[in-house]
């Protein structure tokens, strides 16, 4: 399996888990054209899962739906995007498991300023993958994961140092995961079967990509990469 990053910041998020025959699009917060490019213009066997309704995660949701690609998301997400009656919108509920082709997806609720999911995704090729974004902390632990895609949005120190306005700072702190929380989450979990850790949704102004990667790598000893548009890495249970 291959992980392709189409976009990963507050301007737009979209990730592809590209298997042999089928592809899972996680988030669709970029121009649909960009998604199609990453899919090499092949829409066969593509499904999409969405965490929440914000533009940087669901901008292209209507286009994706109209292209006949089924989108799985929470009912609140669909309502907020005004697509709750669309024939390709598949409502999923936290705590239940859904089989989407060979992918098995289990949404769970996370803490954001709108209803938002995190995902546990299982596929024979990539094993069990955690996808977690737009939450200021996570109170679950996940046994037996093989890959982690997690938000590491900002560092409070950087934010204090660069004069981010108070209201924005408050919003960021209450809705996005910072480096310390991310580290805490990783430390709380058993990472013995983890292969890759992908840091996503890094803030343009309040993060330091190289330092974040280094610190997480130092903490976990895993293959750590920061997501940026165009990145493509092998994404399997093991590196071999």
């Amino acid at each position, binding site marked *: 399996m291959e992980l392709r990053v189409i976009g990963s910041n507050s301007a737009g998020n979209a990730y592809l888990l590209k298997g042999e025959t089928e592809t899972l699009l996680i988030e669709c917060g970029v121009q649909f*054209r960009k998604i199609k490019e990453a899919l*090499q*213009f092949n829409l066969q066997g593509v499904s999409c899962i969405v965490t929440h309704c914000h533009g940087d995660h669901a901008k292209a949701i209507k286009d994706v739906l*109209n*292209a*006949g*690609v089924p989108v799985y998301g929470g009912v609140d997400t669909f309502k907020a995007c005004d697509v709750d009656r669309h024939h390709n919108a598949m409502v999923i509920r936290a705590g239940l498991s859904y089989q989407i082709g060979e992918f098995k997806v289990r949404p769970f609720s996370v803490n954001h300023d709108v209803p938002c999911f995190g995902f546990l995704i299982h596929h024979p090729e990539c094993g069990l993958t955690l996808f977690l974004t737009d939450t200021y902390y996570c109170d679950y632990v996940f046994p037996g994961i093989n890959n982690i895609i997690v938000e590491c949005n900002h560092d409070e120190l950087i934010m204090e140092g660069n004069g981010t306005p108070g209201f924005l700072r408050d919003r960021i702190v209450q809705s996005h995961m910072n480096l310390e929380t991310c580290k805490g989450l990783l430390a709380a979990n058993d990472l013995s079967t983890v292969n890759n850790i992908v840091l996503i949704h890094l803030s343009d102004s309040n993060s330091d990509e190289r330092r974040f990667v280094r610190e997480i790598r130092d903490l976990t000893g895993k293959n750590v990469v920061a997501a940026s548009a165009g990145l493509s890495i092998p994404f399997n249970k093991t590196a071999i």
Partner: protein
Amino acid sequence: MKTIYLQTLSLRNFKGITDLLIQFGQSTKISGANESGKSTILSAFFWLLTGKDEFDRKDYEIKNTLRKELNAQSHEVEGVFLVNNRELKLKRVYMEDWQKPKGQSQKVFKGHYTEYYVNDVPVSLTEYQADVDAMISPSLIKLLTNPHYFNSLDWKDQRRGLVDIAGEITNEDIFTSMNSKVTDFSHLREVLGSGKYKDLDDYKKQLGAKKAGLKKDSEQYLPRIDEAKRGLPDVLDWDDLAKQIKAKKARVEDIDQQLADYSKGLQEKQKGITALNNEIFLKNTLLDGIRSKIKSGLLENQNGKTSEIASVQNQIDSNNREVSRLEKEITSKDEMVERCKTEIERLDMLIQGNREQWEKINAEKFVFDENGCVCPSCKQQLPVDDVVKTKAGLLKNFNEGVASRKADEVRKSDRSKEQKAQEEKTLQSLEQAIEDLGTQLKVTKEKVPALAQQLADIKELAKNASSIDIEAAVTVLMDKNGDALNLLDEIEELRKLVKIQTDALGEPVTFEKEKAEKATLNEELDELKEKLSRKATIEKTELRIAQLKKEESATAQEIATIEQKEFEIEAYNRAKMDILEKRVNDRFRYVSFRLFDQQVNGGIADTCVCEYKDVPYKTLNTAAKLLAGLDVLNTLSQHYEIYAPVFCDNRESVTFIPEINSQIISLFVSPADTTLRVEAA
């Protein structure tokens, strides 16, 4: 490489300059205050080569506007060029054309004409132009002599010029420079190799049109699927429905069986009764036959009276008609009698007249006046003999006359008498006829009362007949009819038998409860079946939705496939641009050209912006503009392999100009120099 070097330029009576000869060097500085004629030198140079000024205006304002008396003379510009060290002397002379028309002493202005000289030899315009073209093509004159000219062109023209400079870029050049994760460009290679399209733009347009059509198609699916979904009934527990239907159907069948069994048993038992009933029916039929026969007899009788009344009435009617006919006839005969009698009276009067006339004639006497016997000619008394003769003659005449007139009267009376006799005969026969008719009338009239009486009698009878109640009469008659009475007895017997046998059957079972239950069950079944039929509707609709979704995905894929081709084209164009930009910009020392714009939607659009130190030409200051212009001009000169004299106007505002290979003529504004000052180096 061709070098064009301007050695001298002489102006005579050209615009504001009366006479000027300039000797040029490799670099020449011409200084002068405003209106001292610097721009005129520029105009003269262009006019000499093209017949137009630097603004492309033909023969424009060549004549002196201040000292108009000079304009009758020729306006001349002569230039001596060294073209690759070979001298070429060009002269253009502009003249006013004055002609003396026949019989007039004054010359008249007819317009202008131009004379051309090459190396002092007068030539035609065509020859002159050919020599100029051989030196430098007219399309290049401004490009290679005016540093600002290229940047004043429309960007599309600039672009074409630059692409020309860059030379051809082959597909291989482009493909080798490209690599993409998204595509291997196999499709684009195929398209370019096939030569099916005029150019890529053409192909791109076709793709765009196709995509627009597909996009329009794709918009229909959402509303259509929505509509189908709206029509979906609620999902019910189909198995449970089917079970319910099955149970209810079974119960209905039970009831039906029960009813059938009962009626079958009943039928068996009722066979004897049915036979008796049949017999009763037969006898009743016979009885009805007798009854209807009696009834029809009575009815016939009643109908006979009616026809009798009619016939008596007919007789009365015809009798009445006869009476009035006879009366009419008698009246007309009476009238005829009257007429006869009047005629007879008239004839009697005629006869009487004849009689009286005859008597009058008869009483006439002969009178002879003897004195009256004179000669008619001499009026003498006639002789006696003659008188006697005459008298005798006259008497004879007189008597003959009387006789004949009397005979006339007799004849007339005879004719009247004859007519009278005829009339009297007619009269007689008429009177006889009247009498006969009278008798007849009397007889006929006498019949009337008798007939009236007869009619009254019959009517009375008939009235009595119709007032009988036929049904009652029939009943009475039936009671007296032996056959009928027998039949009635037999029927009575049979009925008794039937009753005995029916009583033996006992009370009939009506199955009211079961029938009611069956009706209710059937209603329930209809409802259930209707519900179950929704399953088929749902399945059909879901099939339809699935089909539409399939089509939706297929259309989306088609659009994506087209977008992939568009992506390839764009990548190709971008690569081509990159190569082009690089090649173009490699040719310039100071400036660089931006040849495409990145658009918001991710596409690229052609443009052409000359930049110096990343500042677009349009916003550069004067010095930088000249620097950029000279850089471009130098590159163009190298490309076209012609170095031509370059005129730099407003040179005073620029401190530094780059080294170029062309001859430079700089025009400086210097208020101190009221007349032109030329410094050739």
